[in-house]
């Protein structure tokens, strides 16, 4: 079986003086994951 997630998340901030809030995956194709592990993070 397969689970597909599709979601909105912060992309690049408009203003250069702010930290990039872009969402980033911390996994890649082929990685084994366990429920509860972070697969992506972003900064507020």
């Amino acid at each position, binding site marked *: *079986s*397969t*689970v*597909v*997630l*599709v*979601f*909105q*998340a*912060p*992309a*690049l*901030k*408009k*203003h250069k003086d702010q930290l990039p*809030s*872009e*969402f980033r*995956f911390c*996994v*890649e*194709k*082929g*990685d*084994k*994951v*366990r*429920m*509860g*592990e*972070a*697969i*992506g*993070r*972003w*900064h*507020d």
Partner: protein
Amino acid sequence: FFFLRNLHSATNQARASINGSGSSSGSKGNPFLVPGATVATIFMLGALHARRMYSDKKIEEARDSGIELELQPDVKAKFLMMLPLRFISRFWGFLSSTELPVWLRPYAHRAWARAFHSNLEEVALPLDQYASVKDFFVRSLKEGCRPVDTDQHSLISPVDGTIVRVGELKEGVMIEQVKGFSYSVSSLLGAGSFLPLMAAKDIHQHDGSQQENNIRDESTKSWWRISLASPKLRESSSSRPMKGLFYCVIYLRPGDYHRIHSPVDWNVLLRRHFSGRLYPVNERATRTIKNLYVENERVVLEGKWQEGYIAMAAVGATNIGSIELFIEPSLRTNQPRKKLLQSEAPEERLYEPEGTGVLLKKGDQVGVFNMG
């Protein structure tokens, strides 16, 4: 052919000798037939297995050398399309739900764990508490086996499994199934989906003729279509953080823990169930069957979270045809086909109260895949 010709001549000699003696054996069966057929069957199965191992090895080598295999529909995929997969899936579910004698259960579940590399240390109950293989398949885990990442700016994996694809959806809202073939997210989630990119496009690109019948549709759901439309497409001068659309595809092997959890804190507003087909979804199937995830039976949950739109699609497979939702226990999937040929429209349910739906916290159990 050589083997069969020898077998044939051997049986002729045997028959001649039996007829020659006349009296003794009379109507005794042919002594070579059973062992001959058995040897031939074992030989054939061995040859097929060797061929499968060879092709798997070739694929492994290709992958290790960084070559991405392309979509290659083959005879097996075409043969699969003709099989009564739903009947096979339901029959498998019937077999796996057979209650086992208590003394046999540990052996059966250990055999399953060995065959599919399940981790028995994490199983919540003693093995003899699982009355059937099906019960064992939907097992829960011991407390503390899956700590949930508490970083409030993290999105967690909803299941155990292997990452098949991750990425950001750019203009085309297409997800690559395999090199050379992509499927559209709106086909996966459903034409009525609230996918923000589509919503924004819908509003700007609607032609007059569709307008009236969409107004009704829009009015029932527009309150959060508009709210989810991506600012990237709505207000280019927005000082708010831009929003992107991201996706992640996770494949669960038969031995994995099969409960589905919530990836973030979110409100589930709608459930959409596609009866679809039940092709296998293993690595070989993704390389040989087009639109695999769009064809297969699946349950889509749509809602909103702090960053906007979110959807989760649980896609079934031949051996794992059922998807049960803890937030909607009455939902039944993998039902006998009512209409043989045409694919049925998805069946939707808006969760009450409207606009709030069902609130799920990160890590909450949402549902479970099951056999049959």
